[in-house]
């Protein structure tokens, strides 16, 4: 069981500087060969996952804080809202909170859902991306 009292919990903010080498590695890993990402400082749509995993303690540590083991977790939904441009070289700071925790009965047994919402601001303090991530915890 995920303790429902964690709903509303806010994790420590984390910062991530978007390094060109790491972006290049990410582009190669997802087969993103559009030359625009090589020839400009623009970033592909899901790049902020780098900040989520490399910027702070990462998802695994956040899950540990609420006593959930990462291998029991599956990603159910992911949404990004792009408020303002982010480019290579920017430093973004994310603050993640648990927006919801709920259970649902399914054929596979009881499934628990945790909704994480992260707002990222850039080095000027402008809101750039909202990341909403829904995960399933398997019993």
């Amino acid at each position, binding site marked *: 069981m995920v303790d429902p009292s964690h709903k509303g919990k806010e994790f420590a903010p984390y910062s991530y500087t978007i390094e060109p080498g790491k972006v290049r590695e990410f582009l190669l890993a997802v087969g993103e060969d559009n030359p625009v990402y090589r020839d400009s400082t*623009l970033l*592909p749509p899901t790049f902020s996952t780098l900040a989520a995993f490399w910027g702070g303690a990462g998802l695994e540590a956040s899950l540990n804080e609420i006593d959930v083991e990462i291998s029991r977790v599956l990603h159910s939904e992911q949404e990004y809202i792009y408020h303002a441009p982010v480019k290579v070289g920017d430093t973004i700071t994310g603050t993640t909170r648990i927006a919801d925790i709920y259970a649902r009965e399914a054929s596979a047994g009881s499934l628990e859902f945790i909704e994480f919402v992260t707002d990222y601001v850039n080095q000027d303090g402008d809101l750039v991306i909202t990341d*909403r991530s829904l995960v399933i915890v398997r019993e």
Partner: protein
Amino acid sequence: MTLYFEDVSVGDELPELEKGPLQEVDLVRYAGASGDFNPIHTVPRVAQSVGLDTTIAHGMMIMAYAGKMITDWAGAGTLRQFKTRFSGMTKPGESVVCRAKVSKVIEEGGEALVMGRLTVKGKNDDSLKLKGDFTVALPRKSG
């Protein structure tokens, strides 16, 4: 080539994007690049311990493919919103096909917006991997 708002109509289909067949090492590479080291993506023994028959691809890797389809068509930096629901697992050996269709075109808040719905399915069995929706802001020919 720039895609303009005036070039887009409801019902238009985006060019399909096919990826795969995925190799085990692609999952390892994505784990290292993204920093998502959940072992169900890379270590068969752990995947089996939670009831899977083998490792499964990161949903975010499949979402990145869908994102590539969108920005190959609309241009980098045009996305305003992008959402996916991960419906099925993708395993090594599978190929996937990303498809999308324009569902709405509106002018709102001074921006020319195009919305669409997308799917990613297994190439061989048509199994649904993810579905989602997106909004891009496009330039107008009139400027």
